[in-house]
């Protein structure tokens, strides 16, 4: 169950946000339209980031900084728990 939430947690959030956006603009105009635009545009962020390689570049730079180059390949294929640990460490470094 925990694994399922890890996999589908963010996608479910995008589904909820998109649905809210689709419905808000139907209800009224003005500010509701603006909120609908923002809600519908939110899923575009990870999509465009994935297409232009923004997320990948950031991850590679961080991993290189954090550990030895040999660990880079391993990180991409390691277990979910190790990946989560990696991100926690990186976030601490950012802070």
């Amino acid at each position: 169950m925990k694994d399922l939430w890890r996999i589908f947690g963010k996608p479910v959030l995008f589904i909820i946000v998109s649905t809210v956006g689709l419905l808000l603009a139907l209800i009224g105009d003005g500010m509701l339209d603006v909120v609908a635009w923002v809600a519908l545009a939110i899923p575009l962020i990870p999509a465009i980031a994935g297409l232009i390689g923004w997320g990948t570049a950031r991850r590679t730079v961080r991993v290189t900084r954090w550990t030895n180059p040999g660990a880079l390949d391993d990180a991409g294929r390691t277990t979910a728990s190790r990946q989560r640990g990696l991100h926690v460490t990186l976030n601490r470094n950012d802070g």
Partner: protein
Amino acid sequence: MLRPETVRTWSFVHKWTSLVCTAFLLLLCVTGLPLIFYEEIEHLSGRHAKPADVPPGTPAVSVDLIVANALSAHSGDVVQFVSFDPHEPLVGVTTAPSRAAQSDQQFAQFDARTADLAPAPPFDEGFMWIMFKLHVDLFAGLPGMLFLGFMGLLFVAALISGAVLYAPFMRKLEFGTVRRDRSPRLKWLDLHNLLGIVTLAWVLVVGVTGVINTLSTPIVALWQRGQLAQMTAPYAGQPAPAHLASLDAALATARRAAPGMEPSFVAYPGTDFSSAHHYAVFMRGSTPLTSRLLKPALIDAETGALTDMRDMPWYAVLLFISQPLHFGDYGGLIMKFIWALLDIITILVLGSGLYLWRARRGTPSELRAPGALRRSEG
């Protein structure tokens, strides 16, 4: 987590539903892209009727006068429908050799303040018409619409199976991972998963509402045989009126019966949307949602009296709500741009799916399960 046999079953569903519908879905996405901006393109290319330049606040003229002008331009014809543009002071009049005629119809628009003809090229020609017909029925009428509806159903099955398969593919990956430093196939697999999952809600809504829109002809037929037949039953067998009452008076009666609503269009007596004895005035609301929900008011075309007015049944409401949710024309120009971006992303998901299928055909079957794939290529 899913068992390997279950994954294989979902993979089978995803592969075949996708393969069958992808070419048609690509066509729908590509033709749908200009259709998102239909009004803007028609305006920019000068193919849209322009209201006359008159001083602001100029009142509307009698609709009866506009109808008379339309008939004078097509002597011998009768009026079938009168429609009211929701955004501009334009009144459309459809005339034909007879009320029941399904061909030889003429459509013209008139300025609501001057009753003068607002000329525009015929809507059934040019680039946008080709895009529209390809998108709606592949130039094949009702069979084409129903066929595209079936393709839409397959697409929905492909989306659901794709969402199920997202889990085993992402079991060991963080959300948003795109392994672009490996093989091109792995990069496009990750992009296919990422783009597909983040746009899932929008694509599902546009897909399902598209399927509902392909059923518009059967839905209208169901309404005609159901609610419309009930509303006009007391007038069954009565002769058509010898003289038609004023349309302006009928519109005023409908407005009084439905406060806060405005006429969307009027079906004349003897047409498919009315009885032989009634003006059917279809009223619409003022919000993005209620402006799509039509409410028919039947006006006795001889006396001008209201005889019945009802909310339309659930299946018609479902169709009306499906239209804006499919077209994306209910939240201004910015929403249309977002719609277009989401459409382009869907094209990428469809294209990458095809690429992955072609690339995978050379992969031994034992390496095709999600887990095995990562072990072998990752």
